[in-house]
């Protein structure tokens, strides 16, 4: 069993909350983040929300074939990205995590390029939309099969430990992922190796349409960590300060060699599972409305306003600044144009074998 002293309680009855519904500080300790950090978290949230709105829009415009909306997940996604050292630590995200990508600093033109499948995508438009990646930022290429990125995240974590460079791996997934064999295989292996991995469940209570209680007989996702010899934490995943404080502590502990941990972040996705889903078939509108009242953005904005760090003018300025950037990035990504047909045959292997050379030649003939 991996243990250490922690400011926050593992396996708590209630999720950790630090900011109340009216923006009040709820922490049992003194807030010790500087103003710049506090404001930056809000900027990250707004960028993630505006980005998501744009991505949904370009899908509806027919410029993108698919989107997995992330609105409602921003607070935990921003916290994951801000808790790590960008370009030093590794992120193994899942497909809904472009809030992680935008916060860690993946250029917006690359995110739009990936969504529209243009040459602006560093992955050469090889994957369907909503699968970001970035080598310089060590954001591993997201996959569709659920939980399949977790054993690789653990392997990377073991390699980090061997390398001794103080790197940490943060990996995220939805609540449905916790039913997959790969999820259990990964946490089990991480526990035996004390790998520096923080597992983050963006628990929005639905795997497409299947509710959490049909997904697991456990009361919480967090308690599953106990079986794998690591602490499990419950957090209000729509409270950016709670998420940030918790993630920072778990990342620091992993970096210090304490071992892995699991975060069960309670979030809600406001949109459907994807552009191919109709969530009105399985979610009552009152439920969606109730969760919208807990939206991470207005709640955290109220927190900043109470402290004199934000006002209407700052909000207007930020939104117009980000909208200009987003418009420019989307336009640049679209202008980059489609990838050449011949790229289909590249990157299967380091060197193209004879049968692919032949197939490429036949395709070009």
């Amino acid at each position, binding site marked *: 069993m991996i243990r250490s002293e922690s400011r926050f309680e593992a396996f708590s009855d209630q999720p950790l909350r630090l900011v109340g519904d009216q923006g009040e500080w709820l922490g049992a300790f003194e807030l010790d983040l500087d103003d710049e950090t506090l404001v930056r978290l809000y900027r990250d949230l707004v960028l993630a929300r505006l980005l998501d709105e744009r991505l949904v829009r370009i899908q509806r415009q027919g410029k993108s074939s698919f989107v997995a909306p992330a609105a409602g997940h921003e607070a935990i996604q921003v916290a994951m990205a801000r808790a790590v050292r960008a370009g030093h630590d590794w992120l193994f995200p899942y497909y809904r995590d472009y809030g992680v990508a935008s916060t860690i600093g993946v250029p917006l033109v690359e995110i739009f390029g990936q969504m529209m499948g243009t040459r602006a995508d560093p992955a050469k438009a090889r994957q369907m939309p909503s699968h970001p990646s970035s080598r310089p930022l060590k954001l*591993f290429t997201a996959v569709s*099969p659920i939980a*399949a*990125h977790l*054993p690789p995240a653990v392997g990377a974590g*073991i390699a980090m430990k061997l390398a001794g460079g103080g790197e940490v791996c943060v990996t995220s997934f939805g609540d449905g992922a916790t039913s997959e064999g790969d999820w259990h295989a990964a946490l089990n*292996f991480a526990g035996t*190796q004390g790998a520096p991995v923080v597992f983050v469940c963006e628990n929005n209570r639905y795997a497409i349409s299947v509710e959490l209680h049909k997904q697991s007989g456990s009361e919480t996702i967090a308690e599953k960590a106990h079986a794998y010899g690591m602490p499990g934490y419950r957090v209000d995943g729509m409270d950016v300060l709670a998420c940030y404080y918790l993630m920072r502590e778990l990342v620091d502990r992993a970096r210090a060699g304490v071992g892995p941990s699991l975060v069960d972040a309670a979030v809600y996705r406001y949109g459907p599972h994807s552009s191919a889903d109709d969530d009105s078939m399985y979610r009552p509108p009152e439920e969606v409305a109730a969760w919208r009242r807990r939206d991470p953005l207005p709640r955290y904005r109220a927190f900043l306003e109470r402290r004199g760090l934000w006002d209407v003018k700052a909000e207007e300025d930020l939104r117009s600044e980000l909208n200009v950037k987003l418009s420019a990035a989307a336009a640049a990504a679209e202008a980059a144009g489609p990838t050449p047909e011949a790229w289909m045959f590249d990157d*299967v292997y380091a060197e193209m*074998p004879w049968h692919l050379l032949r197939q490429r030649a036949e395709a070009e003939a």
Partner: protein
Amino acid sequence: MALRNIVQTVASTLDAEMARNERVVLLGEDVGKRGGVFLATKGLFERYGPDRVIDTPLSEAAIIGAALGMSVHGLRPVAEIQFADYVFPGFDQLASQVAKTRYRSGGQFTAPLVVRMPAGGGVKGGHHHSQNPETHFVHTAGLQVVYPSTPSDTAGMLRTAIRGDDPVVFLEPKRLYRAVKEEVPDDPDFMVPFGRAALRRNGDDVVLISYGASMAETARAAEALNDQGIGATVIDLRSLMPWDAETVLEAVARVGRCVLVSEAPWTAGFMSEVAAHVTEEIFDELLAPPVRVSGADTPYPYAQDRSYLPGPRRILTAVQKVLEY
């Protein structure tokens, strides 16, 4: 040169590569103190310690998935799957993750790793210790698939696999693990390239093509044919993805007749690909249609362990057929 059998060669080659490059690590079930259930990693735990010879939980998905993460981070992992039959819990990791990492990331991330697995029948293991799953891997773009049949090829190809930049499924013919010893080159850089077949024997009447453990039966069949005055060219494919179509086409075009031997199931087996390719490319040179001799389209049987295999008798019957066509 040192006299070694195949399983000793696996261990000695891993040893040499680990000594040469500290980024080479091993992981799998029982690869540590036990040295692997077939002793393919014997002595390496003592020599390199638990950080580089990692006894994993009993989970093939964890083994292959973790190997991928290690390789993405810069290590050169060599994973052992205890029997090829047990790769299936890790198949999604191979098919969905490992094989597609380079492609789906546009070359940003790569997966230079090796997954070793003893394969094949004839060991009284029933259907969960005897299968030949190579076709699953060949059909998964992004994987290289090799299946050596001799100690020297095992050394040369394992080295190529470890030093290469792409994932390799390294099938080992466990029926032959201790069947023969031969002089294996000591050269620490001895490599056998992938995609090149080996010509084991020259003859003008028929071409026998095989790979892996079935090379033993194929060689015996060729010997029997020789006693009857029938000359067989014998080709060991060694590497299935990529495979050496050039050597095959050249030999078959010269002789005009071929028999394709594999102990994997008959339908859509790798030899079906070879037969299709030969027919498509050099139809006019053929004096008889290519004939396959293979395992059956049944689960691998326990009681009929030997008769399932394409033994010399069945190979000779097929040769008779192509000669009389």
